[in-house]
């Protein structure tokens, strides 16, 4: 940087130059985070509307069509505009280059393009609000219902999905190339932080899966406007083709939402347990297993969709197999806690009680849904809603929250308010269980998903869920308030407040300078060098043997 300044090549700073034209991976990461948090607010609002309607069996808070639009918008936003961009766009962009000891991504301008496409895709979806044609087809948009859908809402939805998909593919290529080629001296694959491993696997999933989704929604668009007959039964089309294409992407997409979250967990646990991660290789390689197997389980979403029941068996088997690498991770994380010196901080609570405690429930209910005979009853009921919310809310969301608190001092150079952070965690934890645990029973007792009307016998359970959702809503506001307050009024953070061992903490200031490092770091060990060695020597917080 000194050399750049010396040649007088530094242009005058302005907001436009600093942010709009930036190709800095950190700023792009921050823009991803801010944008997706705004989208998250709308997705959450839709969820609150849904739960308000369901507080009573037959209230008319929303018209039927508005209700259908609310759950479509909720699902689409949370998946495409919040969890995926937050995990891969925000955390991925900010952390991957700095964690592998690089100045930036391999293709900085393509990286900026990914962000702007993401913003564009989100805005195209939101345009549908203003033209009064919000899609009401569910986030899955199954034909033939979606083809008949009136108004331009679905066309906006398809366009939006296409643009977001392009953004994902570009980002995935960028991550793969960067991770392969930009690692600093000594940063071998087996010394990479586990978040980088997770992000790499995720990028491959995005690269191979997204085109299937693009194909699926393109056929919808062609059927709607250009007279093709992919899904027109009278002309020999078959609606199930769409479901195969859709789930070929959308089941791996679940792993896009959970593998980076697992990466965040693997970063935070050892830091606050002051222990090396237990079974580094098992955790890293089980991500690869999950990534591969993720492409072989898609039809478990379709056990009752018109396949022969026995056709479901191979997909049941692969779904069972995928539980193995997942449980390996859980036990490795538990073993990381064993014999540790655990400090209770907000990020630690979110990953331990939060992620480990809640994701386990989602994993176990997943085994039930994966068994064909049980899925005959449970498919498309609130049991499924409970299951995937324990995975993406109990899992992905708590990891995102943990990550936001954990890297907050790094990104802003300020500390958040610890006590309020912990209050927010407990509200989150209680709210999540209140909201989603009763849904298991609601589903088993016979309430399908995506309905605004239900049997009055299920009122109490539904009201518990509604109260829980309000608790989550308040917790989210508290959490955002904490972080916003800290940006302006928080205590100044030191370079490495947690005593972590990854490069962004050990070798970069808080916040990092424009090119991350003053000197290129050289790596000599894996990034979790904590703990008392057998010879009695200890490591202090800077990772230096004392």
């Amino acid at each position, binding site marked *: 940087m000194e050399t750049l300044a010396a040649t007088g090549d530094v242009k005058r700073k302005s907001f436009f130059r600093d942010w709009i034209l930036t190709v800095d991976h950190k700023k792009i990461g921050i823009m991803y985070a801010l944008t997706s948090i705004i989208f998250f607010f709308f997705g959450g609002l839709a969820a609150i509307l849904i739960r308000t309607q369901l507080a009573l069996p037959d209230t008319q808070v929303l018209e039927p069509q508005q209700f259908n639009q609310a759950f479509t918008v909720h699902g689409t936003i949370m998946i495409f505009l919040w969890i995926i961009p937050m995990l891969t766009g925000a955390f991925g962009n900010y952390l991957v280059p700095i964690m592998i000891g690089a100045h930036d991504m391999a293709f900085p301008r393509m990286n900026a393009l990914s962000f702007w496409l993401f913003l564009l895709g989100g805005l195209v979806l939101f345009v549908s609000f203003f033209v009064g044609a919000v899609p009401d087809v569910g986030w899955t948009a199954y034909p033939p219902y979606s083809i008949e859908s009136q108004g331009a809402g679905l066309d906006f939805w398809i366009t939006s999905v296409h643009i977001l998909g392009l953004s994902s593919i570009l980002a995935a290529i960028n991550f793969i190339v960067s991770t392969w080629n930009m690692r600093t001296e000594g940063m071998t694959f087996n010394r990479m932080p586990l978040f980088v491993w997770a992000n790499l696997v995720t990028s491959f999933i995005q690269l191979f899966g997204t085109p299937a989704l693009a194909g699926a929604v393109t056929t919808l668009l062609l059927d709607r406007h250009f007279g093709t007959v992919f899904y027109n039964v009278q002309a020999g089309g078959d609606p199930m083709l769409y479901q195969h294409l859709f789930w070929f992407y959308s089941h791996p997409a679940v792993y896009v939402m959970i593998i980076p979250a697992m990466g965040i967990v693997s970063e935070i646990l050892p830091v606050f*347990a002051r*222990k090396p991660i*237990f079974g580094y290789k098992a955790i890293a390689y089980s991500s690869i297993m999950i990534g591969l197997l993720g492409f072989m389980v898609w039809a478990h979403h379709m056990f*009752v969709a018109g396949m022969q029941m026995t056709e479901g*068996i191979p997909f049941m088997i692969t779904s069972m197999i995928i539980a193995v690498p997942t449980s390996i991770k859980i036990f490795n994380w538990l073993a990381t806690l*064993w014999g540790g010196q655990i400090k209770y901080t907000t990020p630690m609570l979110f990953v331990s009680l939060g992620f480990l405690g809640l994701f386990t429930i989602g994993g176990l209910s997943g*085994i039930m849904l994966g068994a064909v005979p*049980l899925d005959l009853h449970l498919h498309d009921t609130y049991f499924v809603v409970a299951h995937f919310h324990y995975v993406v809310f109990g899992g992905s969301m708590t990891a995102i929250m943990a990550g936001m608190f954990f890297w907050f001092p790094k990104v802003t150079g300020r500390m958040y308010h610890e006590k309020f952070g912990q209050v927010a965690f407990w509200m989150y934890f209680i709210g999540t269980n209140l909201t989603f645990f009763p849904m298991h029973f609601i589903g088993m007792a016979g309430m399908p998903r995506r309905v605004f009307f239900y049997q009055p016998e299920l009122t109490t359970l539904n009201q518990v869920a509604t109260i829980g959702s309000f608790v989550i809503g308040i917790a989210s506001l508290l959490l955002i308030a904490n972080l916003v307050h800290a940006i302006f009024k928080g205590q100044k953070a030191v370079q490495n407040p947690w005593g972590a061992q990854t490069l962004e903490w050990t070798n970069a200031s808080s916040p990092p300078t424009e090119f991350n490092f003053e000197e290129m770091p050289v790596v000599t060990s894996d990034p979790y060098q904590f703990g008392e060695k057998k010879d009695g020597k200890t490591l202090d917080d800077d990772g230096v043997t004392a």
Partner: protein
Amino acid sequence: MSSAAQKEISQIGGGQVGLSNFYLPEALTGTAKDIDGLFGMIVWIALVMFILVEALLVIFLIRYKRKHPDKHGKAIDGNTKAEVIWTLIPALILVFIGIYSTSMVYTIQEPPENVYEIKVTGMKWAWEFEYPNGAKSFNDLRIPEGENVLFKIYSKDVIHSFWIPEFRIKQDAVPGRETRFWVNADQLSGGENKYEKRVICAEYCGNQHSLMLADLQIMPAKEFTAWVDAELTRPKTDAQYVVQANGCTSCHTIDGGKSAGPTWKGLFGKKQIVNGQEVTVDEKYLEEAIVQPDAKTPEGYSTGMMPAFQMEPEAIKNVVEYIKSLQ
């Protein structure tokens, strides 16, 4: 869980259901009971795993809480033996669940010989049931007790899903495809054989998806035969039948809710604006609206939306009377 909630749940299906049965409704077929058995087994396995993980988590968090700020934990970065154990044990459990489930799938799929076939057709937003003698019923499924019944499931428009929680089975109704499942059902316990709104559409299919519900009756074989014979010859002019068979409620709600056409609730006697003139809805207006819908289209609706219906005068009269009753 509050005891009130448990009591509420226990009323579903008339049988004794509660936490002891994981809130599942009464199982009315042998298959449903088998599925519940598998469910119970997996739930217990899951519970053991759940308690193991959560207990270890909480114990470790409490036991290893850091007391001195600079202290480190043990520098253990792995143990092959332990890792092999916690890879193999879950794998073996899952293999067991997989094999057990697989054998069950074949039993559920293969219908026995001598089945009584009922044709189920899903449409926006009603269920049509056609019996072997040609009799049809709408939103009213009746099956003979203790006989093998095979449902052949179709769709007239979009994808629906034919689900009866008491049988623990659903299959999607997919346009252009025939799906099927079979049951052999007992009566509901408690002497009641009618079960309202228990045939449920489980696949989202549009505005009134939530209300695409049919009643279920499991009748003694003799009563059933008598009913199905009578149903074939019965003059089909009663309002319920006509309304369902012509799919009126696809566009007209009966509870005041919005839909493509005007709601029937409070329609009779209402003042409508037609071609700038105020018209009161009376019998004549309604009759004309059924036979010639485009003759007097009220403001806010466009012509050409509703087809003209040809019906017996008796049927029209009954439907008009029905609409009159919805005040």
